[in-house]
């Protein structure tokens, strides 16, 4: 296997419903990513794109082929990846494998979504399509409901009063907003207090509005390059040193490990083993905080904190910049936003910028050398982890 590097990238503003098409959103970030990587359209050998609901949001399937044509890359292979909210991370991992294998030297990887454009009722319906349509959606399952049930199970499993877990969850949201306010591309740039979180509308008990990430429109893209060409493109490449991916069936079938998401534990072990490191080596992590409880659950399975203890870690600042591991300095899905097909690429781009010390100073993790992404699709159905380190 050859070494594979991220050489540049771009992210659109993540927003509420807006009028640019998916082709336009993806084309803009693609051109920016290419410019930042010192490559031109003719240099791109393949496109790997995450996109989940384009068919529903604007009546456009196969957006990857139209985007390829739009950016002057007509004729090259262009693939769409659908792994629910982890789609772009699946795309990055597959692109990594193709470049590592020697098949391609320079590829464009990213994702695009107009989830906010769906509107909340249709977004709630279509997001639920990533749950089991036969045996779980009939009960009225929605994504907040999945994580609401996991929150109750978390409190029971670790024998914690629900009020304490709710306070821990609120702490997660407050920290995410605190960082997102400094992220120029974030959707929700405002300070939110514990009191505001705990008095917000109850979506699905015990989850309240500020426990939930927003629906978002947006796109992100990165350029991956092989070790054979990387030196011509940038002096500060970021190497992808480990990748992992795993799958799981419906929620009811995960009974042996819930509230832990077992596919995450399989995935992150692959990534750690490939990179030859462990959780203690991670300086910065962009993890999948679709709901505040999801952060607590994720941080434990990634090995940062003991099971049932991550809430205390957040309260003590151990999950913040300056703590044990800086989690979601971008603001995470909560504040940056969650255009589902693009999220994984935005996470990779954030780690890329963090390792190069290029983010806004208020949210820069000092001297970050190794970072990781964690992206969850559905209720654990698809899980991807990507580990990156400075490559200069």
């Amino acid at each position: 296997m050859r070494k594979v590097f991220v050489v540049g990238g771009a992210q659109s503003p993540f927003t509420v419903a807006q009028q640019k098409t998916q082709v336009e959103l993806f084309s803009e970030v693609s051109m920016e990513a290419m410019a930042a990587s010192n490559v031109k359209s003719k240099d791109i050998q393949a496109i790997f794109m995450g996109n989940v609901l384009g068919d529903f949001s604007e009546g456009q399937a196969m957006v990857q082929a139209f985007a390829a044509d739009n950016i002057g890359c007509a004729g090259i292979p262009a693939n769409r990846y659908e792994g629910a909210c982890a789609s772009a991370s699946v795309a990055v991992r597959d692109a990594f494998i193709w470049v590592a294998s020697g098949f391609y030297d320079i590829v464009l990887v990213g994702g695009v979504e107009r989830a906010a454009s769906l509107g909340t009722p249709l977004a709630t319906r279509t997001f639920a399509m990533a749950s089991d349509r036969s045996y779980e959606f009939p009960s009225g399952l929605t994504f907040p409901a999945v994580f609401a049930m996991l929150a109750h199970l978390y409190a029971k499993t670790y024998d914690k009063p629900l009020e304490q877990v709710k306070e821990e969850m609120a702490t997660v949201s407050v920290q995410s907003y605190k960082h997102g306010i400094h992220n120029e591309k974030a959707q929700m740039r405002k300070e939110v207090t514990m009191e505001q979180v705990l008095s917000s509308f109850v979506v699905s008990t015990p989850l309240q509005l500020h426990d939930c990430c927003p629906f978002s429109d947006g796109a992100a893209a990165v350029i991956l390059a092989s070790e054979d060409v990387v030196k011509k493109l940038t002096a500060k490449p970021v190497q992808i040193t480990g990748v992992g991916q795993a799958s799981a069936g419906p929620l009811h079938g995960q009974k042996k490990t819930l509230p832990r998401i077992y596919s995450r534990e399989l995935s992150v072990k692959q990534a750690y083993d490939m990179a030859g490191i462990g959780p203690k080596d991670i300086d910065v992590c962009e993890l999948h905080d679709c709901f505040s409880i999801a952060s607590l659950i994720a941080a434990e399975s990634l090995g940062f904190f003991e099971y049932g203890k991550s809430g205390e870690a957040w309260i003590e600042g151990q999950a913040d910049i300056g703590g044990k591991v800086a989690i979601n300095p971008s603001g995470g899905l909560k504040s940056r936003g969650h255009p589902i097909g693009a999220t994984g690429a935005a996470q990779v781009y954030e780690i890329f910028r963090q390792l190069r010390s290029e983010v806004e100073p208020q949210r820069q993790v000092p001297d970050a050398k190794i970072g990781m992404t964690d992206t969850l699709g559905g209720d654990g159905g698809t899980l991807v982890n990507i580990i990156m380190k400075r490559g200069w």
Partner: protein
Amino acid sequence: MEYKLTFEAYNKALKKNKLLGLTCKDCGTITAPPKMVCSECAGTNLDIVELSGKGTIKTFTLNNVAAEGRECEAPYTIVLVELAEGPWIMGNLMVIDPAVVTMDLIGRPVSMGKLGPKVFPGDKYSAGDSARPLFNLES
């Protein structure tokens, strides 16, 4: 290889308040809802069995925001129930009183009520209707 217990057959039985599953003739594990293979040993030596519809609540939520087309159902309580036969299964609970739908529900025994299941009539995306168990709290 033919699918032993299809969604169509499972759904048809559930609409008559009969909960079906699969028993593995190799390892004895009960798989429900159905899958192609045994959920424990991945074996294919399976027989269809009727399950008791009794179990205990493992977790729950009282959901206030429903998907498009199902707004009239909210609020409703979703439960994950561990059946007496072992599998976990998702359904609704009769109770939606916030004073009752609390952490105290976890561990409470439930059974599929005589009122029968609830049936989602389907929408333009669902290729037909689908039933789910409706559980009652046992006193």
